């Protein structure tokens, strides 16, 4: 494993972590607004995101930095389009948040992030072993 490979893997892991965080954020926002009249639940449209990636339509947009020393993580909002969730049951005040769906989505994102943490940590451990030269 070359250093470049490690970097590429880390980049992928970072992207995955960012998606997970964004997803948790959407769920948190939807849950905070579960009693707001007329609020429409939002989610990341993974199908559209995957299609973007497969068609090679990935946009290169630099992430927002507030300091010259900030590293560009290459979060590209356009590559992860958002969409409204379709609700299971209509509600009288026009709110489409289903707390159980949101809780389930948040839990999924939570597990994804944990898995990615684990992969990342193990990758770093492997690299440390290689650098130290003892197995």
């Amino acid at each position: 494993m070359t250093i470049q490979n490690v970097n590429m893997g880390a980049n992928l892991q970072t992207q995955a972590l960012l998606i997970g965080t964004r997803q948790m954020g959407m769920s948190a926002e939807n849950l905070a607004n579960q009693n707001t009249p007329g609020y429409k639940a939002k989610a990341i449209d993974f199908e559209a995101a995957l299609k973007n990636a497969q068609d090679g339509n990935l946009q290169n947009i630099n992430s927002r930095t507030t300091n010259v020393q900030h590293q560009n993580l290459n979060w590209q909002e356009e590559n992860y389009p958002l969409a409204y969730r379709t609700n299971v049951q209509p509600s009288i005040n026009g709110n489409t948040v289903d707390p159980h769906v949101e809780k389930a989505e948040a839990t999924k994102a939570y597990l994804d992030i944990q898995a990615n943490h684990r992969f990342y940590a193990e990758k770093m451990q492997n690299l440390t072993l290689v650098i130290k030269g003892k197995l």
Partner: protein
Amino acid sequence: MSFRDIISASGSGASAQNIRLNTIASNLANADSVSGSASETYKARNPVFAAALQDARDSFAMPTPGQPLGVRVLGIVEDKAPLQPEHAPHHPLADENGFIYRSNVNPINEMANMIDASRSFQINIDMIDMVKNLHQKSLTMGQ
């Protein structure tokens, strides 16, 4: 959107539900309040919720770090349901026609509202708990 922003979004939700629980407690406490005039009688109060930055969020724009997310309480409004006048000429608060006015609080509505508010509060706190765990894991990553 960082973990901190998620915690603030869920925090705004928990805080809004707390205000709702507060108005419910006030309504239930005053469910049996009576008064000698319709204008002075206690009327049920309810908070009005609105998504923070609803207009900006409709465009699906990426929130910038530190932007307020979640929910905000626009205000607290009084229930417009009619009051119940009651003929009680011997009541010390009765007006010149012998009427007292009971508040328009419906205790059954309030109880149902209370359960919903309490569940919503819990779910927001659960969310904060999950994000807190992840944040802590991120801090110890690679150790």
